[in-house]
């Protein structure tokens, strides 16, 4: 048991996972608050196709990942709230994008015949945080720190713009630019989370800690900090669980912890609401 913690792959996973979780907690809080969880869902589709396209083209997986998700984030920002297409259009487009991802997956797995590439699709879809090398972990940490700093930098005006867009715009807050920049940050976070838990599960890492934090407190900045803390706790809990029980894949363990923590907040809330509110 103790031997696992001294293994380099576990240390890399904890190091990268911690910073990725902080970034996911911070960005996820704003995603939930701005009711843009569906954008996260869309980003998860795009992340898969981007990563597979890069692999099929012979580039680094992360290049395609970041290019696709940040590009998609900017595209959503460009479409804006007014030009938002309805969910039938979104569903059609994303079914097609996923189909394209399946195409690239086959191109990639059949182009290098004989070599052990069959797991590439699984890796991108469901992540493999224990497979991160030292330099990969370092890059992931650096990008996560950058995302966190940028999010904290724009946190105050972004919160204002989220809670009351009209007043914020009247006060001279660049609402449109903020929304644009935030979606680009969300894209970068999605690409980061894909390396940890995979593109299909990143939605849970974005939504669960933020949803739990919003249930637990009404104060925005406390909820923001709580969301990041819960995300880190989910990540550590998942990694520990996976180290304890090696048959559980880390992505599942992380999602299970996140889901359990979120479910626990539903048990806490009613008892707190039942108490008379102090006047």
């Amino acid at each position, binding site marked *: 048991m103790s031997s696992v913690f001294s293994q380099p792959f576990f240390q890399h996973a904890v190091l990268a996972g911690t910073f990725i979780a902080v970034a996911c907690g911070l960005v996820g809080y704003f995603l939930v608050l701005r009711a843009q969880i569906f954008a996260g869902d869309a980003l998860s589709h795009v992340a898969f196709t981007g990563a597979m396209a890069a692999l099929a083209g012979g580039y680094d997986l992360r290049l395609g990942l970041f290019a696709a998700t940040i590009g998609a984030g900017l595209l959503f920002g460009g479409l804006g709230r007014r030009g938002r297409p309805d969910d039938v259009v979104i569903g059609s487009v994303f079914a097609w994008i996923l189909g394209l991802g399946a195409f690239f*997956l086959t191109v990639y797995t059949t182009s290098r015949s004989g070599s052990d590439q069959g797991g590439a699709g699984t890796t991108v879809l469901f992540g493999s945080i224990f497979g991160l090398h030292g330099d990969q972990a370092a890059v992931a940490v650096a990008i996560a720190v950058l995302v966190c700093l940028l999010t904290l930098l724009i946190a105050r005006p972004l919160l204002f713009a989220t809670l009351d867009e009209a007043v914020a715009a009247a006060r001279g807050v660049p609402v449109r630019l903020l929304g644009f920049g935030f979606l680009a940050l969300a894209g970068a976070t999605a690409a980061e989370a894909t390396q940890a838990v995979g593109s299909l599960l990143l939605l849970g890492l974005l939504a669960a800690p933020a949803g739990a934090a919003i249930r637990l407190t009404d104060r925005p900045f406390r909820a923001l900090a709580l969301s990041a803390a819960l995300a880190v706790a989910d990540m550590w809990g998942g990694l520990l669980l996976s180290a304890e029980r090696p048959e559980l894949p880390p992505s599942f363990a992380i999602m299970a912890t996140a889901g359990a923590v979120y479910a626990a907040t539903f048990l806490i809330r009613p008892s707190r609401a039942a108490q008379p509110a102090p006047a």
Partner: protein
Amino acid sequence: MLLASDATSPVFSWNLPADFQDMWSYLYMVNAFRAGLVVSVVCALVGWFMVLRRQTFAGHTLSVAAFPGAALATLAGFSLSLGYFGFCVAAALVIAALGRKGRDAGAEESAVTGTVQAFALACGFLFISLYKGLLEGPTALLFGDFLGITTGQVLLLAAVGMLVLAALAVIGRPLFFASVDPEVAAGRGVPVRLLSTLFLVLLGAATAEASQITGTLLVFALMVIPAATAQRLTARPAVSLALSVLLALGSCWAGLIAAYYQPYPLGFFVTGFAFAGYVLAHLLGWAREVVDRSRSAVQIGGTA
């Protein structure tokens, strides 16, 4: 999928009767075409109502539930069909019990849905990784595979499909009424809530059928895209229902033919063909609008 990489890979000639003879000399291709027929008819009809009722989000959640169902069936060794139908119908009942919250609800509900979907997918991944024997990993379940369809499966698909269609035929007219104008329908004594629950169960069954052809992630290719295309092309219900069936069948069979001759997965071709039709329908719609506008402008100019 592995078929075309064989040394004796079939080559598409434009001599169609010979091509079909070649394809249908394999039992699994005949079964694939039969299953495609059943699934596209059922999915197009149910999907048409789903698009009309704007319940694509519920459809997405149901299709996500199909993945852990199939994975658990593989792990525990019971029938794959049972896993698909059991999980999808159970998920439909859960959604119906929670009520129609969907996308319009607040931020908190969307966080719940996102978490539940991700957790369902994670469970599927757990079952897959516990079951070591699956060589291709989860990609066959997620993106569709048509090589292993047996005659028994086709019969089951057909039986469930008939049930769904029969139920849809019975509730079709009141369901249409309730979808278009729920308040007036409720006022006239139509049991709107019961119909909505029934429809979700039908949707679950149809999603389970489609998952077995296109894979759980690409169910929308047969459920949403044909119906959306048909509703874009014509406003008359009967015509667009028929058109939606034709489009689904067309893209499914064309996808099967393409997947037989190319080494790429079936899901890619089916989504590709369906989406091409959707884009064409939109272009056609815009072109028609532009023509109408210029014609009316000419008429106004002529009378003035």
